[in-house]
Protein backbone atom coordinates (compact mmCIF):
# COMPACT_ATOMS: atom_id res chain seq x y z
CA UNK A 1 0.00 0.00 0.00
CA UNK A 2 2.74 2.37 1.04
CA UNK A 3 4.56 1.51 -2.14
CA UNK A 4 1.57 2.54 -4.27
CA UNK A 5 1.26 5.88 -2.48
CA UNK A 6 4.95 6.57 -2.98
CA UNK A 7 4.67 5.76 -6.63
CA UNK A 8 1.66 8.03 -7.16
CA UNK A 9 3.31 10.88 -5.27
CA UNK A 10 6.55 10.51 -7.19
CA UNK A 11 4.69 10.48 -10.48
CA UNK A 12 2.75 13.63 -9.59
CA UNK A 13 5.95 15.37 -8.54
CA UNK A 14 7.60 14.41 -11.81
CA UNK A 15 4.64 15.68 -13.86
CA UNK A 16 4.65 19.00 -12.01
CA UNK A 17 8.37 19.43 -12.57
CA UNK A 18 8.01 18.67 -16.28
CA UNK A 19 5.09 21.07 -16.58
CA UNK A 20 7.03 23.82 -14.83
CA UNK A 21 10.07 23.26 -17.04
CA UNK A 22 8.06 23.40 -20.27
CA UNK A 23 6.17 26.51 -19.19
CA UNK A 24 9.38 28.37 -18.32
CA UNK A 25 10.86 27.26 -21.64
CA UNK A 26 7.81 28.61 -23.45
CA UNK A 27 8.05 31.91 -21.61
CA UNK A 28 11.74 32.12 -22.47
CA UNK A 29 11.30 31.33 -26.16
CA UNK A 30 8.54 33.92 -26.62
CA UNK A 31 10.97 36.73 -25.75
CA UNK A 32 12.23 38.43 -28.93
CA UNK A 33 15.91 38.20 -28.06
CA UNK A 34 17.45 37.69 -31.50
CA UNK A 35 16.80 38.70 -35.11
CA UNK A 36 14.63 36.02 -36.63
CA UNK A 37 15.64 34.24 -39.81
CA UNK A 38 11.96 34.05 -40.75
CA UNK A 39 11.85 37.84 -41.07
CA UNK A 40 14.28 37.90 -43.98
CA UNK A 41 12.72 39.51 -47.02
CA UNK A 42 11.83 36.81 -49.56
CA UNK A 43 11.55 37.13 -53.31
CA UNK A 44 9.53 34.08 -54.32
CA UNK A 45 6.64 35.48 -56.36
CA UNK A 46 6.27 37.74 -59.31
CA UNK A 47 3.09 39.15 -60.81
CA UNK A 48 2.72 40.84 -64.15
CA UNK A 49 0.80 41.84 -67.20
CA UNK A 50 1.48 41.01 -70.81
CA UNK A 51 0.41 42.19 -74.23
CA UNK A 52 0.71 40.31 -77.45
CA UNK A 53 -0.59 38.92 -80.68
CA UNK A 54 -2.66 35.73 -80.70
CA UNK A 55 -3.28 33.72 -83.86
CA UNK A 56 -6.59 31.93 -83.48
CA UNK A 57 -6.64 29.06 -85.95
CA UNK A 58 -9.21 29.58 -88.73
CA UNK A 59 -9.67 33.14 -87.50
CA UNK A 60 -7.39 36.15 -87.45
CA UNK A 61 -4.41 37.43 -85.52
CA UNK A 62 -5.75 39.38 -82.60
CA UNK A 63 -4.40 41.74 -80.02
CA UNK A 64 -4.40 40.04 -76.62
CA UNK A 65 -3.84 41.12 -73.03
CA UNK A 66 -3.19 38.96 -70.02
CA UNK A 67 -2.13 38.72 -66.40
CA UNK A 68 0.14 36.19 -64.74
CA UNK A 69 1.42 35.08 -61.36
CA UNK A 70 4.65 33.12 -60.99
CA UNK A 71 6.01 31.20 -58.03
CA UNK A 72 9.75 30.65 -58.29
CA UNK A 73 9.80 27.21 -56.68
CA UNK A 74 13.49 26.37 -57.01
CA UNK A 75 16.44 27.97 -58.77
CA UNK A 76 15.47 25.99 -61.88
CA UNK A 77 11.70 25.39 -61.70
CA UNK A 78 8.80 27.79 -61.48
CA UNK A 79 5.01 27.51 -61.55
CA UNK A 80 2.90 30.03 -63.39
CA UNK A 81 -0.79 30.91 -63.69
CA UNK A 82 -1.91 32.83 -66.76
CA UNK A 83 -5.12 34.42 -67.91
CA UNK A 84 -5.55 36.09 -71.27
CA UNK A 85 -8.31 37.45 -73.38
CA UNK A 86 -8.73 38.42 -77.02
CA UNK A 87 -11.56 39.52 -79.24
CA UNK A 88 -11.92 37.64 -82.54
CA UNK A 89 -12.71 39.71 -85.60
CA UNK A 90 -14.43 38.17 -88.61
CA UNK A 91 -12.35 35.57 -90.40
CA UNK A 92 -12.06 35.79 -94.18
CA UNK A 93 -14.52 32.90 -94.42
CA UNK A 94 -17.01 34.77 -92.22
CA UNK A 95 -16.63 37.98 -94.23
CA UNK A 96 -18.08 36.27 -97.29
CA UNK A 97 -20.34 33.65 -95.66
CA UNK A 98 -21.59 35.35 -92.49
CA UNK A 99 -20.63 35.00 -88.86
CA UNK A 100 -20.38 31.52 -87.30
CA UNK A 101 -21.22 32.91 -83.85
CA UNK A 102 -21.60 36.28 -82.22
CA UNK A 103 -21.67 38.25 -78.99
CA UNK A 104 -19.68 36.98 -76.00
CA UNK A 105 -18.74 33.82 -77.87
CA UNK A 106 -16.32 35.88 -79.96
CA UNK A 107 -14.21 36.53 -76.87
CA UNK A 108 -11.29 34.17 -76.64
CA UNK A 109 -10.69 33.53 -72.94
CA UNK A 110 -7.91 31.30 -71.75
CA UNK A 111 -6.33 30.37 -68.46
CA UNK A 112 -3.67 27.83 -67.64
CA UNK A 113 -1.34 26.40 -65.02
CA UNK A 114 2.22 25.91 -66.21
CA UNK A 115 5.48 24.50 -64.99
CA UNK A 116 8.59 26.21 -66.25
CA UNK A 117 12.22 25.26 -66.34
CA UNK A 118 15.08 27.73 -66.64
CA UNK A 119 17.27 26.22 -69.33
CA UNK A 120 20.03 28.81 -69.52
CA UNK A 121 20.51 31.32 -66.75
CA UNK A 122 22.73 34.27 -67.34
CA UNK A 123 23.48 37.90 -66.76
CA UNK A 124 22.93 41.04 -68.76
CA UNK A 125 25.19 44.06 -68.72
CA UNK A 126 23.28 47.19 -69.59
CA UNK A 127 26.21 49.26 -68.43
CA UNK A 128 29.69 48.39 -67.24
CA UNK A 129 29.73 46.80 -63.81
CA UNK A 130 25.96 46.62 -63.54
CA UNK A 131 24.68 43.09 -64.10
CA UNK A 132 21.04 41.97 -64.21
CA UNK A 133 19.80 38.39 -64.19
CA UNK A 134 18.28 36.72 -67.23
CA UNK A 135 17.23 33.28 -68.40
CA UNK A 136 15.88 31.31 -71.32
CA UNK A 137 13.06 29.04 -70.18
CA UNK A 138 10.54 26.50 -71.43
CA UNK A 139 7.00 26.04 -70.09
CA UNK A 140 4.32 23.36 -70.36
CA UNK A 141 0.96 22.88 -68.74
CA UNK A 142 -2.78 22.55 -69.02
CA UNK A 143 -5.72 24.90 -68.97
CA UNK A 144 -9.07 25.91 -70.31
CA UNK A 145 -10.05 27.84 -73.42
CA UNK A 146 -13.49 29.36 -73.95
CA UNK A 147 -14.18 30.35 -77.53
CA UNK A 148 -17.14 30.12 -79.87
CA UNK A 149 -19.42 28.75 -77.18
CA UNK A 150 -17.08 25.85 -76.48
CA UNK A 151 -14.94 25.08 -73.47
CA UNK A 152 -11.87 23.07 -74.39
CA UNK A 153 -9.18 21.23 -72.48
CA UNK A 154 -5.99 22.96 -73.57
CA UNK A 155 -2.36 21.94 -73.56
CA UNK A 156 0.07 24.84 -73.47
CA UNK A 157 3.73 24.73 -74.45
CA UNK A 158 6.10 27.59 -74.88
CA UNK A 159 9.52 29.09 -74.78
CA UNK A 160 10.47 32.44 -73.36
CA UNK A 161 13.25 34.75 -72.40
CA UNK A 162 13.32 36.92 -69.32
CA UNK A 163 15.66 39.62 -68.09
CA UNK A 164 15.60 42.00 -65.19
CA UNK A 165 15.79 45.71 -65.96
CA UNK A 166 15.95 46.46 -62.26
CA UNK A 167 16.37 44.28 -59.25
CA UNK A 168 12.60 43.55 -58.99
CA UNK A 169 11.33 44.34 -62.47
CA UNK A 170 11.41 41.56 -65.06
CA UNK A 171 10.68 41.77 -68.77
CA UNK A 172 9.43 38.58 -70.41
CA UNK A 173 9.24 37.71 -74.09
CA UNK A 174 7.08 34.66 -74.67
CA UNK A 175 6.11 32.34 -77.45
CA UNK A 176 3.21 30.05 -76.52
CA UNK A 177 1.21 27.41 -78.34
CA UNK A 178 -2.30 26.65 -77.10
CA UNK A 179 -3.37 23.26 -78.40
CA UNK A 180 -6.97 22.10 -78.14
CA UNK A 181 -9.62 20.10 -79.94
CA UNK A 182 -12.57 21.99 -81.37
CA UNK A 183 -15.49 21.51 -83.76
CA UNK A 184 -16.33 25.17 -84.23
CA UNK A 185 -16.10 24.98 -88.01
CA UNK A 186 -17.89 21.68 -88.35
CA UNK A 187 -15.60 18.75 -87.75
CA UNK A 188 -13.42 17.76 -84.79
CA UNK A 189 -9.87 18.92 -85.21
CA UNK A 190 -6.85 19.84 -83.14
CA UNK A 191 -5.93 23.49 -83.40
CA UNK A 192 -2.67 25.27 -82.66
CA UNK A 193 -3.12 28.83 -81.49
CA UNK A 194 0.18 30.59 -81.18
CA UNK A 195 0.91 33.73 -79.26
CA UNK A 196 3.76 36.19 -79.10
CA UNK A 197 3.77 38.21 -75.93
CA UNK A 198 5.73 40.89 -74.15
CA UNK A 199 5.22 41.26 -70.43
CA UNK A 200 6.46 43.10 -67.41
CA UNK A 201 6.48 41.58 -63.91
CA UNK A 202 7.27 42.71 -60.42
CA UNK A 203 9.19 40.37 -58.13
CA UNK A 204 8.17 40.35 -54.46
Amino acid at each position, binding site marked *: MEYWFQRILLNTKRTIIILLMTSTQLAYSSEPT*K*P*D*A*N*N*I*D*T*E*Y*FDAGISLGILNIEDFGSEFTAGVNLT*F*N*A*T*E*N*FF*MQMNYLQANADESSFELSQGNLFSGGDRNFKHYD*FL*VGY*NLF*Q*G*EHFFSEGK*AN*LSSLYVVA*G*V*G*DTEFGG*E*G*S*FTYTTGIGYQFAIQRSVIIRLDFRDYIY*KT*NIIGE*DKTTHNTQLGLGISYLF
Partner: protein
Amino acid sequence: MTTLIFSAVTNAQELPLNLKVIDPYIELHSGPGAGYPTFYTIEQGEDVTVLTRRTGWYEVKAQNGKIGWAVASQVARTLLPTGEPVDLPSVSYGDYLKNSWRAGFKMGRFNDGGLEGSDVFSFSLGYRPLSWLGMEIEDGKIYKSEIKGNFQAINLLFEPFSQWKVSPVLTVGTGKIEIESQPELTPLEFDKESFTSFGLSANYYLGRNFVLKAGYQSYIVSTNTDNERLAQWNIGFNAFF
Protein backbone atom coordinates in the same frame (compact mmCIF):
# COMPACT_ATOMS: atom_id res chain seq x y z
CA MET B 1 10.78 57.48 -53.38
CA THR B 2 8.20 55.10 -51.97
CA THR B 3 10.84 52.38 -52.03
CA LEU B 4 13.14 54.60 -50.02
CA ILE B 5 10.52 55.30 -47.38
CA PHE B 6 9.50 51.66 -47.34
CA SER B 7 13.04 50.40 -46.84
CA ALA B 8 13.63 52.97 -44.12
CA VAL B 9 10.55 51.76 -42.28
CA THR B 10 11.46 48.09 -42.57
CA ASN B 11 15.01 48.83 -41.46
CA ALA B 12 13.69 50.51 -38.36
CA GLN B 13 11.51 47.54 -37.51
CA GLU B 14 13.80 44.61 -38.18
CA LEU B 15 17.30 44.10 -36.92
CA PRO B 16 19.69 42.90 -39.61
CA LEU B 17 20.59 39.24 -39.32
CA ASN B 18 24.36 39.05 -38.77
CA LEU B 19 26.05 35.68 -38.89
CA LYS B 20 29.55 34.31 -38.31
CA VAL B 21 30.98 31.96 -40.93
CA ILE B 22 32.14 28.60 -39.53
CA ASP B 23 32.69 26.75 -42.80
CA PRO B 24 36.22 27.18 -44.21
CA TYR B 25 34.67 29.69 -46.61
CA ILE B 26 31.36 30.75 -48.20
CA GLU B 27 31.27 31.31 -51.93
CA LEU B 28 29.49 34.39 -53.24
CA HIS B 29 27.85 33.87 -56.62
CA SER B 30 26.76 36.73 -58.85
CA GLY B 31 23.21 35.33 -59.05
CA PRO B 32 20.89 32.92 -57.22
CA GLY B 33 21.79 29.79 -59.20
CA ALA B 34 24.57 27.22 -59.39
CA GLY B 35 25.50 28.44 -62.88
CA TYR B 36 26.35 32.00 -61.86
CA PRO B 37 30.07 32.52 -61.39
CA THR B 38 31.69 32.75 -57.98
CA PHE B 39 33.31 36.18 -57.64
CA TYR B 40 34.26 36.32 -53.99
CA THR B 41 34.74 34.11 -50.95
CA ILE B 42 34.01 35.03 -47.35
CA GLU B 43 36.47 33.36 -45.00
CA GLN B 44 35.95 31.50 -41.77
CA GLY B 45 35.39 33.81 -38.80
CA GLU B 46 34.10 36.75 -40.85
CA ASP B 47 30.62 38.21 -40.35
CA VAL B 48 27.92 38.29 -43.03
CA THR B 49 24.59 40.13 -43.12
CA VAL B 50 21.63 38.37 -44.70
CA LEU B 51 19.66 40.67 -47.00
CA THR B 52 17.08 38.69 -48.99
CA ARG B 53 16.13 35.18 -49.78
CA ARG B 54 15.15 33.44 -52.98
CA THR B 55 14.44 29.74 -53.21
CA GLY B 56 17.60 27.87 -52.22
CA TRP B 57 19.73 31.03 -52.03
CA TYR B 58 20.41 33.96 -49.72
CA GLU B 59 21.69 37.35 -50.73
CA VAL B 60 24.38 38.26 -48.21
CA LYS B 61 26.70 41.19 -47.59
CA ALA B 62 30.29 40.65 -46.50
CA GLN B 63 32.09 42.86 -43.96
CA ASN B 64 33.80 44.81 -46.73
CA GLY B 65 30.49 45.57 -48.45
CA LYS B 66 30.62 42.95 -51.21
CA ILE B 67 27.10 41.68 -51.97
CA GLY B 68 26.44 38.29 -53.55
CA TRP B 69 24.40 35.12 -53.42
CA ALA B 70 25.25 32.18 -51.17
CA VAL B 71 23.67 28.74 -51.34
CA ALA B 72 21.19 28.13 -48.48
CA SER B 73 22.84 24.98 -47.16
CA GLN B 74 26.12 26.89 -46.64
CA VAL B 75 24.45 29.84 -44.93
CA ALA B 76 22.72 27.37 -42.61
CA ARG B 77 26.14 26.35 -41.27
CA THR B 78 26.88 29.72 -39.66
CA LEU B 79 26.62 31.03 -36.09
CA LEU B 80 24.42 33.70 -34.59
CA PRO B 81 26.14 36.45 -32.50
CA THR B 82 25.04 34.43 -29.45
CA GLY B 83 27.14 31.50 -30.67
CA GLU B 84 24.13 29.37 -31.53
CA PRO B 85 23.92 27.65 -34.92
CA VAL B 86 21.51 29.38 -37.31
CA ASP B 87 19.64 26.51 -38.89
CA LEU B 88 17.77 28.87 -41.18
CA PRO B 89 14.38 27.69 -42.42
CA SER B 90 14.05 25.58 -45.54
CA VAL B 91 17.15 23.54 -44.82
CA SER B 92 15.73 20.06 -44.27
CA TYR B 93 12.61 18.48 -45.80
CA GLY B 94 10.67 18.50 -42.53
CA ASP B 95 10.99 22.27 -42.11
CA TYR B 96 8.73 23.43 -44.88
CA LEU B 97 6.27 20.56 -44.67
CA LYS B 98 4.76 21.68 -41.42
CA ASN B 99 2.71 24.89 -41.25
CA SER B 100 3.17 25.61 -44.91
CA TRP B 101 0.78 26.62 -47.66
CA ARG B 102 0.66 24.78 -50.91
CA ALA B 103 -0.61 25.55 -54.38
CA GLY B 104 -0.70 23.10 -57.21
CA PHE B 105 -2.35 21.75 -60.28
CA LYS B 106 -2.82 18.34 -61.80
CA MET B 107 -4.07 16.83 -65.02
CA GLY B 108 -5.47 13.41 -65.63
CA ARG B 109 -7.82 11.13 -67.48
CA PHE B 110 -10.78 9.05 -66.35
CA ASN B 111 -10.13 5.43 -67.29
CA ASP B 112 -13.22 3.79 -65.83
CA GLY B 113 -16.92 4.48 -65.34
CA GLY B 114 -19.32 6.80 -67.15
CA LEU B 115 -16.69 9.45 -67.84
CA GLU B 116 -14.15 7.06 -69.40
CA GLY B 117 -11.82 8.90 -71.74
CA SER B 118 -12.53 12.34 -70.30
CA ASP B 119 -9.66 14.72 -69.68
CA VAL B 120 -9.55 16.46 -66.35
CA PHE B 121 -7.48 19.14 -64.71
CA SER B 122 -7.73 20.80 -61.34
CA PHE B 123 -6.17 23.50 -59.21
CA SER B 124 -5.73 23.06 -55.47
CA LEU B 125 -4.86 25.20 -52.49
CA GLY B 126 -3.79 23.51 -49.29
CA TYR B 127 -2.44 23.90 -45.84
CA ARG B 128 -0.32 21.45 -43.91
CA PRO B 129 -0.78 21.76 -40.13
CA LEU B 130 1.28 18.63 -39.32
CA SER B 131 4.28 17.09 -41.01
CA TRP B 132 2.20 14.05 -42.05
CA LEU B 133 -1.24 15.62 -42.58
CA GLY B 134 -2.48 18.13 -45.11
CA MET B 135 -5.81 19.45 -46.29
CA GLU B 136 -6.78 21.05 -49.56
CA ILE B 137 -9.62 22.48 -51.54
CA GLU B 138 -9.74 21.46 -55.16
CA ASP B 139 -11.52 22.93 -58.15
CA GLY B 140 -11.49 21.06 -61.41
CA LYS B 141 -12.90 20.77 -64.90
CA ILE B 142 -13.80 17.71 -66.95
CA TYR B 143 -13.77 17.56 -70.75
CA LYS B 144 -14.79 15.11 -73.41
CA SER B 145 -15.99 15.94 -76.89
CA GLU B 146 -19.67 15.88 -75.85
CA ILE B 147 -19.26 16.24 -72.09
CA LYS B 148 -18.32 19.20 -69.98
CA GLY B 149 -18.23 19.24 -66.23
CA ASN B 150 -16.72 20.63 -63.10
CA PHE B 151 -16.12 19.47 -59.56
CA GLN B 152 -15.17 20.96 -56.21
CA ALA B 153 -13.71 18.87 -53.42
CA ILE B 154 -12.22 19.02 -49.95
CA ASN B 155 -9.46 16.48 -49.42
CA LEU B 156 -7.39 15.20 -46.52
CA LEU B 157 -3.90 14.05 -47.39
CA PHE B 158 -1.92 11.62 -45.25
CA GLU B 159 1.80 11.42 -45.90
CA PRO B 160 3.40 9.36 -43.11
CA PHE B 161 6.88 9.11 -44.65
CA SER B 162 7.37 12.73 -45.67
CA GLN B 163 11.13 12.58 -45.02
CA TRP B 164 11.59 10.35 -48.08
CA LYS B 165 12.41 11.85 -51.45
CA VAL B 166 9.66 9.67 -52.96
CA SER B 167 6.87 9.22 -50.48
CA PRO B 168 3.34 7.73 -50.63
CA VAL B 169 0.25 9.88 -50.05
CA LEU B 170 -3.21 8.65 -49.17
CA THR B 171 -6.05 11.00 -50.16
CA VAL B 172 -9.60 10.93 -48.83
CA GLY B 173 -12.07 13.50 -50.05
CA THR B 174 -15.62 14.56 -50.61
CA GLY B 175 -17.22 17.01 -52.96
CA LYS B 176 -19.73 17.92 -55.64
CA ILE B 177 -19.62 17.10 -59.33
CA GLU B 178 -21.70 18.62 -62.10
CA ILE B 179 -21.81 17.19 -65.61
CA GLU B 180 -23.52 18.54 -68.69
CA SER B 181 -23.50 17.22 -72.22
CA GLN B 182 -22.23 19.96 -74.49
CA PRO B 183 -24.69 19.57 -77.35
CA GLU B 184 -27.11 17.72 -75.02
CA LEU B 185 -26.72 14.50 -77.00
CA THR B 186 -25.44 11.86 -74.64
CA PRO B 187 -27.76 11.03 -71.77
CA LEU B 188 -25.64 10.44 -68.65
CA GLU B 189 -26.42 8.54 -65.50
CA PHE B 190 -26.00 11.66 -63.40
CA ASP B 191 -25.73 15.44 -63.69
CA LYS B 192 -25.28 17.16 -60.34
CA GLU B 193 -24.26 14.83 -57.52
CA SER B 194 -22.02 14.53 -54.50
CA PHE B 195 -19.13 12.12 -54.29
CA THR B 196 -16.53 10.65 -51.99
CA SER B 197 -13.10 9.75 -53.26
CA PHE B 198 -10.05 7.73 -52.25
CA GLY B 199 -6.67 7.93 -53.82
CA LEU B 200 -3.12 6.74 -53.60
CA SER B 201 -0.29 8.74 -55.07
CA ALA B 202 3.42 9.34 -54.74
CA ASN B 203 5.18 12.62 -54.05
CA TYR B 204 8.56 13.14 -55.63
CA TYR B 205 10.47 16.07 -54.14
CA LEU B 206 12.15 17.81 -57.07
CA GLY B 207 13.30 20.60 -54.78
CA ARG B 208 12.86 21.60 -51.19
CA ASN B 209 9.45 23.09 -51.83
CA PHE B 210 8.59 21.73 -55.24
CA VAL B 211 6.86 18.38 -55.65
CA LEU B 212 5.86 16.17 -58.56
CA LYS B 213 2.81 14.11 -57.64
CA ALA B 214 1.34 11.19 -59.59
CA GLY B 215 -1.40 8.82 -58.60
CA TYR B 216 -4.72 7.09 -58.91
CA GLN B 217 -8.02 8.41 -57.57
CA SER B 218 -11.25 6.45 -57.27
CA TYR B 219 -14.63 8.24 -57.01
CA ILE B 220 -17.96 6.98 -55.75
CA VAL B 221 -20.74 9.24 -57.04
CA SER B 222 -24.06 8.73 -55.26
CA THR B 223 -26.87 9.06 -57.82
CA ASN B 224 -30.63 8.70 -57.36
CA THR B 225 -30.68 5.06 -58.35
CA ASP B 226 -27.31 3.63 -57.32
CA ASN B 227 -23.64 4.47 -56.96
CA GLU B 228 -21.58 5.29 -60.01
CA ARG B 229 -17.87 4.50 -59.81
CA LEU B 230 -15.24 6.58 -61.57
CA ALA B 231 -11.48 6.19 -61.62
CA GLN B 232 -8.77 8.56 -62.75
CA TRP B 233 -5.01 8.61 -63.29
CA ASN B 234 -3.35 11.94 -62.72
CA ILE B 235 -0.06 13.79 -62.55
CA GLY B 236 0.65 17.25 -61.20
CA PHE B 237 2.94 19.74 -59.57
CA ASN B 238 2.79 21.35 -56.14
CA ALA B 239 4.75 24.15 -54.55
CA PHE B 240 5.02 24.95 -50.84
CA PHE B 241 5.47 28.48 -49.59
